[in-house]
């Protein structure tokens, strides 16, 4: 007999197998999910969930697809949370301090309670990346927020009503577009392709009969994997 645990889905008690995720437990209980279920693999932030374990006062946030049920778990899902998303034109914005003041002035009302960090389902230093955003340190904000799945748990807990995931997204886009150094080889290659420099080479290969292509493929030179290993990181 499978080991069972009691979980309270929206307060109602269900007995479910101990090994299931919270999402699995809901489905085992008979829910057919529409909201609150997206990638089922911890990347999309659709299944934000709040729980308390009986006898423990701590309020916890998690992704339902990535968290195993525990006995006495009281569960509420948060499939949607209204976070602020101002519209902007990436071609117009610049990575200066003004842009955060314009678009997300509420970040300067942060009271330093750290509730966002405690709520983060990805264990990110949320309050810290907001501090970087306040100071216009977008690269640092981007670095610390990179693994954000935009589940909104931080915003749900924030007394200053900050929309952390959107702040971080802007910081990352500014970093990717304006701050990170240009990949010159990429720019050059795109130009060369547009210029037609590679067209003939490709047409020549594509025009070959299958048998010849097989020969080419089976005997093609494969770039060594070890040569550049230690140097491709800073």
């Amino acid at each position, binding site marked *: 007999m499978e080991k069972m645990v009691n979980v309270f889905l929206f307060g109602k008690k269900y007995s479910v197998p101990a090994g299931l995720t919270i999402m699995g437990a809901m489905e085992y209980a008979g829910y*057919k999910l529409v909201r609150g*279920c*997206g990638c089922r693999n911890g990347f999309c932030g659709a299944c934000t969930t709040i729980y308390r374990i009986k006898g423990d006062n701590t309020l916890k946030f998690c992704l339902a697809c990535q968290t195993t049920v525990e006995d006495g778990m009281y569960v509420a899902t948060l499939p949607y949370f209204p976070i602020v998303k101002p519209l902007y034109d990436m071609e117009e914005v610049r990575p200066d301090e003004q842009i955060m003041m314009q678009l997300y002035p509420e970040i300067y009302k942060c009271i330093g309670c750290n509730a966002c960090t405690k709520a983060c389902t990805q264990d990110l230093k949320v309050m810290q990346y907001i501090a970087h955003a306040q100071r216009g340190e977008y690269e640092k904000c*981007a670095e610390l927020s990179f693994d954000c799945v935009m589940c909104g748990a931080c915003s749900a807990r924030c007394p200053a009503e900050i929309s952390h995931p959107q702040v971080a997204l802007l910081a990352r886009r500014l970093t990717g*577009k304006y701050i990170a150094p240009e*990949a010159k080889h990429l720019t050059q290659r*795109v130009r060369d392709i547009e210029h037609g420099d590679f*067209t003939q080479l490709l047409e020549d290969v594509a025009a070959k009969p299958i048998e010849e292509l097989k020969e080419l493929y089976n005997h093609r030179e494969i770039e060594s994997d070890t040569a550049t290993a230690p140097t491709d990181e800073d």
Partner: protein
Amino acid sequence: MFTPEMLASAKKVEATRAQRIGMEPRRMTADEKDRLLEEFHPDYKMDSFDVLQIGPNKGDKVPKELAALLQANSRVQGLEFDLERPDYDVDVLIIGGGGAGASAAIEAHNGGANVMVVTKLRIGDANTMMAEGGIQAADKANDSPAIHYLDALGGGHYANKPELLKKLVTEGPGAVKWLNDLGVMFDKAPDGTMITTHGGGTSRKRMHAARDYSGAEIMRVLRDEVWNRGIPVVDFTAAVELILDEDGRAAGAVLQNMETGEYRIARAKTVILATGGAGRLHYQGFPTSNHYGATADGLILAYRVGAKLLYADTLQYHPTGVAFPEQIFGALVTEKVRSLGAMLINSEGEAFMHPLETRDVAAASIIRECKARGKGVETPEGCGVWLDTPMIDMIHGEGTLEKRIPAMLRMYLKYDIDMRKVPILVYPTLHYQNGGIDITVDGQSGVENLFVAGEAVGGIHGRNRLMGNSLLDVIVFGRNAGQNASAKAKTVKNGKLTLRHIEAYAKEMEEAGIVSDKVSPLLLPTYTHGRAKWQAEK
């Protein structure tokens, strides 16, 4: 945590680790690969396929689960709609909110079209979001579109449609630059050079990544861009049937609110299907790495209006799905783990193959190790082999694994498995629909004004896709479809709309003697996790 049997086997992996560093296992010959695939790849398991009895691909074999949905009843059969009073009237209707749909929306918007996206979940709930490893593009000095072409062609068993593949590889660098300029944060060296690695079957290091959140980073930027442009996104709304005009051209869709059940009619001058893959159909009982809505809806919708499918019998089983722990069974372990040097090791501690063979070969090889050679490791869900992740930091230096594949590390740490210190157990998982709807190079299907982009397309990747060519394909062909659909929309005058194809298809089914108790598209799978289904259903 691991069982005692697993730990005993992991010890053997640890024992051979040091001597494996720096050595490269032999790659298989073409003949060895062919024999391996025939014997062990799921695509070759003939009793798992059915032959279609009706429609444009009559006589072709497709997975049983797909055949059952292709030859099923319309969800709106017998219902009456006033098609001349549509709820939405747009130039370009995009069905699907993943990477291809979002890219198409941005380009259609650039083209000046009045564009609308409908998606049955939220924009971004898509396989794009979950693509971890990276995106290929031939942008390094030792590389070229021609070399990329040959890699993809050989990997695809020479079945790729040449004009589609040419477009894919030629526009690769442009696609990466487009994303970079939208603000996607690719992994770069301090001088701006893209950090690139190998993927299975690549002959040059052309895999660009954003840690192991490559698809997520791309998707959240594309989604933000769609929002910034004010493009309407109607979420939690599925397309349940396409609408044609009297000349048989695509002209809209019947939509249904996933929560309230309410139907809506959308009229459009052109339609783009960007509905993604089919992992949630769990072909041959495999687990899947796909998102919740990957149920081949686009194939069903297109087939019913007469669009031809191509290579619908070829699926990609990603060699390294999670085999243990059971909570994340079938989840993806990115190929980047192998790109960074981790080897596939059997229960005896032997490296039984080169870690960077193409995905079909790697999957078949793992299945052989477990099923035929008895060198798999037993798990609660079946069997697995080791992926020797501690090798990564040994090769590249401490901290590399955490920096380059943080999502994987996080996923396993939740189950107290530190993949920096211990190897992990993997087994193939249903990952990608190689085939799909046949298109011409403009992105159009056999049905006029019906464009297709992304995983719903067949032919770009032949019979097996290489890692990193899917993120590339959703961008290249998503943009392409958006551009062409918006240009085409300018020339289209909507005729009278009709759903006559539903009756016609039902009649074809009847004449072929097909009786189905199913309706399609499926929209979402049903899971009960072992609880008897009759209990779970009302």
